[in-house]
């Protein structure tokens, strides 16, 4: 029997920050990181001297890592972490920072993700992404993540009877949610017909199954409830978290993610059930991964997600508000910040500081991350349940 993780006592998550995304920008990741910190200064009076822990995620800060960033940004932390885990980095930053604060290794940790996106930088980023990709993925048509997830989607649809209309419903709902988010890059309503008629990218992936790469930054603070209160910051507690890497390596095609390995202990530790979740912020690089998370996080049994999708309203006013800022599919994917935006949005909803419409009476948010296609599947997964401290 595995030891049960200790509860996250005396930890407060607060101060969600989103630097408005831009489709293309000549600014560097360092600039976007600086913009996020400046927002923290302007909204809560934070100074470099107040930060004693720093956790950083980025694909485009090279040659700098978190080390270069602390000197660049004038920080003197006594706790430092760098996460190369992209879409899983938000949940992972939260887990690490929460334990650091809980154990006293740091008092106020800024978790920050920032990525640049100049014209053509997406192609360069792809070409140097991972050794397995270089050896065994790109030489096969160089379709990028679209091709990888096309293969997963192809298998998933045949295996579980999920249709393009089912994925379309998720994308249309997320676009509707983006409508009220002034920072979303794509806010024009999406119809099911437009979704179905979109041009094919890598069959069965079509245009509106794909995110729009962009530049941007996201940040949040993990500290103690006392400090949050002293600074007048609404905050949330961490009910439970999980993390898993390279789960089920024997599965020939990824039809389930690492969540499925640990989800029972997750709900036990959180002390709640899926029905208690007020808003679900899952990683959405492609709708197939959204569907996979709905199953693997326990919102419906494996293989039943098509029924669940057909019966559920995923808009902000609906029965399971999903990716309430529009998710990456509508708001844009700002590199590693794409793995933070689900966390900042979940946090905003339960702190009642939304960018767009508020989920009525939201108290509990479930945030889920998925990252890094090293070869043929996403390797890193994580999830966290947050509850407002009131």
């Amino acid at each position, binding site marked *: 029997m595995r030891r049960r993780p200790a509860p996250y006592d005396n930890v407060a998550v607060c101060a969600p920050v989103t630097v408005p995304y831009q489709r293309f920008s000549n600014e560097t990741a360092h600039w976007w990181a600086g913009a996020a910190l400046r927002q923290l200064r302007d909204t809560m009076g934070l100074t470099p001297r107040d930060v004693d822990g720093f956790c950083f995620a980025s694909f485009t800060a090279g040659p700098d890592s978190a080390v270069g960033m602390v000197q660049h940004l004038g920080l003197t932390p006594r706790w430092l972490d760098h996460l190369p885990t992209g879409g899983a980095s938000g949940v992972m930053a939260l887990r690490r920072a929460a334990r650091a604060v809980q154990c006293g290794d740091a008092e106020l940790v800024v978790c920050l993700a920032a990525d640049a996106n100049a014209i053509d930088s*997406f*192609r360069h980023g*792809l*070409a*140097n992404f991972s*050794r*397995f990709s*270089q*050896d*065994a*993925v*790109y*030489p*096969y*048509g*160089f*379709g*990028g993540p*679209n*091709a990888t997830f*096309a*293969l*997963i989607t*192809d*298998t998933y649809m*045949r295996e579980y009877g999920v249709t393009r209309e089912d994925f379309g419903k998720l994308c249309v709902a997320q676009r509707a949610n983006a409508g009220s988010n002034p920072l979303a890059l794509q806010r024009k309503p999406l119809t099911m017909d437009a979704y179905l008629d979109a*041009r*094919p*990218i*890598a*069959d*069965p*992936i079509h245009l509106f199954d794909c995110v729009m790469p962009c530049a941007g930054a996201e940040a949040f603070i993990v500290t103690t409830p006392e400090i949050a209160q002293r600074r007048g910051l609404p905050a949330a507690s961490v009910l439970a978290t999980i993390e898993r890497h390279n789960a089920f*390596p024997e599965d*020939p*095609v990824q039809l389930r993610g690492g969540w499925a390995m640990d989800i029972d202990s997750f709900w036990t530790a959180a002390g709640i059930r899926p029905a208690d979740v007020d808003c679900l912020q899952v990683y959405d690089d492609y709708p197939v991964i959204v569907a996979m998370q709905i199953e693997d996080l326990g919102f419906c049994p494996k293989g039943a997600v098509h029924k669940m999708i057909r019966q559920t309203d995923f808009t902000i006013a609906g029965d399971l508000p999903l990716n309430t800022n529009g998710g990456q599919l509508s708001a844009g994917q700002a590199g590693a910040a794409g793995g933070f935006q689900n966390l900042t949005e979940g946090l905003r909803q339960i702190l009642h500081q939304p960018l767009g419409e508020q989920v009525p009476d939201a108290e509990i948010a479930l945030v889920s991350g998925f990252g890094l296609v090293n*070869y*043929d599947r996403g390797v890193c997964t994580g999830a966290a349940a947050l509850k407002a401290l009131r």
Partner: protein
Amino acid sequence: MSARPPKETRDPLARKKARHVAPGKRSRAMHALSARAAQGRFVLQVCTDCGTATYPPREACPNCWGKLAWQDQPTGAEVLCETEIRVSTDLYFRDHLPWRMGKVALDAGPVALVHLHRSLTPGDRAVIRTMLDRGGNAALFALPPSGEIDMTDPQLREFVVPIVGKTVLVSDARSAIGLAVVKALHEAGAALVVAGMAPPDRALGAGAEILSREGVQQVPLDIADQGSVMEALSKIGGPLDIVINTARHVRAGGVSANANLVEQRRAFDVAAMGLSRLAQATGPMLAGRPNGAFVDLISSDALAGSASHAGFAAAEAARLALLQAFRAEMRDAGVRVMAVFTGPVEDEHHQRVPPPKVAPGRIARSIVEALTQGHEQTCVGDVAQDAMARWLEKPALYAREKNL
């Protein structure tokens, strides 16, 4: 005689088509796989401790952390899923969209992403061929179980060298080998075979009637003479797709004993310097073609010195070194540089050599096969195959044993 296929031509005023090659960056382990794929082998790493086969190439066994060694593998596989890529940011693939690829479960164990033949769908059985892509690196191609290469599939054509409708230069068409090669390429559908008539101008042997067929053009060509090379190429009207370098100067003789320096010098002038002259003159022409290739016929004596044919072996060794450098130069242009190794040939130059010897017709068939199957390196006949196997295993021992 049936009508020759139409010869491919190019409008001299048309905008030149920019040619790109498939992305070329690879790990060291992947290059090790490519080196074996160039020999026509399908290998994967297998753990020396637990026996698990692994892919993509790794540096340690993911099952038990044991050491990995390359081993030949069964080529069967089952198709798991498929996609047709319609959008790519890579310049090479953008020129060839849509591109079919998929994932297979290899009979050897691991799953792999593959180029997927257009007739294959999920659930189908397939055979996996490791072929070299336009960047010269190994790529897995899933073919229907017959393994047949369908030359009308544009995706598959990127991995092989089609002959039909092409213009081919044979550098020495006067020899028995040269005549056989001209005949084989003519029969394989080349629109024009330019037959280089090397000096001295002597009577032609059996099979010379091929040279007067429609679709064969004789040009005087001595690759030991720069002026002759330039003049011969100027006589080829239109593009040149394939060069087959059959020129060689086979003579017995040692270094200090039975040495003939005139013959040694001529061997170098034909085999080594001749290759350079031909490569310099034809490289730019091949680089402009969609499926350019240079095939060099080379002696397996190039692998280790020969006491009986010292000068010849030395010249062939120099030729091999130059060929490897030429291959690297042409990689960026997507031109395939191929080597066909042979041992002693059933011809006038090997009258004193006992069998086994390789018939010129067999060499010619191997050259056609190397082109149409996309084999970078071929060994034709028992002697060349044995020499290559022994050289690959223990080069120092092979050099000793060969000259005992």
